């Protein structure tokens, strides 16, 4: 189909093809959903049109001779610290389209990454570090509301438990998969996450898109969301879950709703979301039955009632300025797990300006929430899950030391499944078969491979976490959780150190 060229918009990438290496096998032609590569039968040569390239590397990855390389388009603007190329290009795009700029994945602006400003501790001499390969190293984590104290039944000897614990979620490693809905990602991607969660003894999250009937089998390892759109929510859905999550906000777009375009709502998605086929799936910005903390309390208890108090109820919010006070309110309203999604959290589609400018880093949000709940003496009443931009096991260890009970990984999980962060999720043309519903593309993610890679990632990170804990002389995750003594700040202002409540390196 011919579309009018947008003259001001220049290619983002330059596709280079090494003619000495290219064997005209046309794998690239077959693999690019953006029609970058094309075989000219007359000339018997493959040619590439850089203009359409999104830099997803599908072609380069599958090229059997590594003949393809992809560079940033070398078209340089006159250096301008104020108007950098990014800003200029965005203005061009909007001048051409007259629309809101959209982006996929998380905030990519160069804000400081505070994980990289925190350093971990290790034992020397005065106490022994522990070798996780030789000695037990425990990552088992329980999410849910805990009482302040345990009561023992007085008369009995040996001691017997009198306290009845609230429902707890048991994780073999303190890492879960972030909410990603069926619709925003493909069925194969959802299946991979669910299978991996089961295999690794942790949990995947349905997101707000409902639960595909074939994924019910994995519900014991799934946290099911109740979001403003209420997609796919009925009593069976609620009772199928291992835990429920009320989604208030998302780090990538605080205060913004969701929008799944109608063309993506095929028969299967329509059945799963319980909306007519081909209609846009719109999640309102707020829950229209939650305008205050009391309303939240009502929904939390409605869900508990509906599920006979058999599963913990999570509440997820975006990390915004007064996150600590909000979190404390949520806990008092009955949230058993508080999920804080930092401003680097991912998304299938968000207005670029929102994604890049709203919210605060998870590092500060987490530190503030944990400290606040402790000050108020209600830290036991809820677990805290941190999300939004966890890139490696060290990030996870630092988050737990800051006070998180567990973390959610979204982007990292997608990357494990092949995502190359081209940020074009919203186009539905994901060449890696993840953020698409096009049957030609969804085939590209073999869920057996997806599962294996996800399990490997969790396994690798868990091993590294154990190594780091062992180095600190700690053999149980609960002794790392909130143990900020094992963190030291580097290149941080006194104020930042104070908020994180950690000492500076050298102190």
């Amino acid at each position, binding site marked *: 189909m011919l579309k009018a060229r947008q003259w001001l918009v220049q290619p983002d990438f330059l596709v280079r093809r090494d003619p000495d290496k290219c064997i005209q096998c*046309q*794998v690239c032609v*077959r693999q690019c959903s953006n029609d970058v590569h094309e075989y000219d039968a007359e000339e018997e040569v493959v040619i590439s049109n850089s203009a359409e390239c999104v830099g997803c590397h599908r072609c380069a990855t*599958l090229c059997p001779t590594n003949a393809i390389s992809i560079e940033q388009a070398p078209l340089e603007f006159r250096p301008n610290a104020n108007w950098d190329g990014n800003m200029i290009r965005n203005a061009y795009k909007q001048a051409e389209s007259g629309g809101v700029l959209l982006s996929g994945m998380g905030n990519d602006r160069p804000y400081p990454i505070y994980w990289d400003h925190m350093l971990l501790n290790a034992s020397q001499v005065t106490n022994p570090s522990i070798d996780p390969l030789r000695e037990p190293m425990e990552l088992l984590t329980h999410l849910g509301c805990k009482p302040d104290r345990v009561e023992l039944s007085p008369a009995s000897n040996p001691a017997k438990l009198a306290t009845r614990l609230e429902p707890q979620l048991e994780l073999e490693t303190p890492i879960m998969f972030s909410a990603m809905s069926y619709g925003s990602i493909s069925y194969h991607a959802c299946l991979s996450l669910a299978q991996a969660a089961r295999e690794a003894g942790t949990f995947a999250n349905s997101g707000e898109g409902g639960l595909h009937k074939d994924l019910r089998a994995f519900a014991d390892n799934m946290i099911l969301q109740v979001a403003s759109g209420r997609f796919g929510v009925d009593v069976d859905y609620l009772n199928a879950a291992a835990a429920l999550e009320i989604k208030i906000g998302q780090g990538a777009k605080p205060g913004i709703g969701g929008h799944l375009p109608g063309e993506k709502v095929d028969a299967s998605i329509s059945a799963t979301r319980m909306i007519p086929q081909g209609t846009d799936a719109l999640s309102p910005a707020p829950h229209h039955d939650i305008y205050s903390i009391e309303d939240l309390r009502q929904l939390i208890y409605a869900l508990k009632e509906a599920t006979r108090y058999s599963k913990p109820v999570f509440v997820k919010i975006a990390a915004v300025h007064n996150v600590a006070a909000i979190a404390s309110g949520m806990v008092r309203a009955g949230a058993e797990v508080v999920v804080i999604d930092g401003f680097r959290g991912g998304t299938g589609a968000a207005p670029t300006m929102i994604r890049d400018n709203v919210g605060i880093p998870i590092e500060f949000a987490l530190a503030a929430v944990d400290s606040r709940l402790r000050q108020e003496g209600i830290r036991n009443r809820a677990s805290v899950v941190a999300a939004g931009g966890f890139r490696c096991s060290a990030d996870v260890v630092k988050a737990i030391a800051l006070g998180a009970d567990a973390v959610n990984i979204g982007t990292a999980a997608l990357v494990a499944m092949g995502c190359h962060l081209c940020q074009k999720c919203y186009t539905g043309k994901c060449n890696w078969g993840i953020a698409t519903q096009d049957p030609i593309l969804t085939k590209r993610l073999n869920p057996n491979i997806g599962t294996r890679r996800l399990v490997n990632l969790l396994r690798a990170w868990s091993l590294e976490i154990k190594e780091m804990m062992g180095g600190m002389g700690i053999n149980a995750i609960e002794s790392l959780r909130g143990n900020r003594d094992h963190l030291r700040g580097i290149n941080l202002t006194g104020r930042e150190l104070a908020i994180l409540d950690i000492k500076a390196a050298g102190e």
Partner: protein
Amino acid sequence: MKRVIIKEEFCIGCRLCEINCLVQHSKSKKIIKVFRNERDSLVSGVQVEQSGYVSFAIQCRHCEDAPCMEACMTGAMHWDAETGAVLCEQDRCVGCWMCIMVCPVGAINTGPNRAVASKCDLCYGAEMPACVANCPNEALIYGEYDEE
């Protein structure tokens, strides 16, 4: 006996199987040289069929009672006890094409210059056939059927 198991639902139609089959059965075994110099002297033993999102790679099924073996009038087509593969001993083949006539999956071809029958040999001697080893999406698996 190990066979190549086809997973139609995961075939992405990239045709890397065909490409690597050629390389594996070439003289030089160097992909770029193969496509420069040997291309015309090679026919892939695996063939990708595609229409819309349905696609799969098909090569000789190495049938238990192979019709091509029954039909072969020269004994070129034979069963390899070691690998269980149905192989075509090309210097016995005279190119009568009986095998092509009877192969229900159409996995045998007339070879580069229509001299003798050519087909998948499971990359004889290799631990894993090239098409399987080079499938990026595990749409081809090398294993026993009952493992499935």
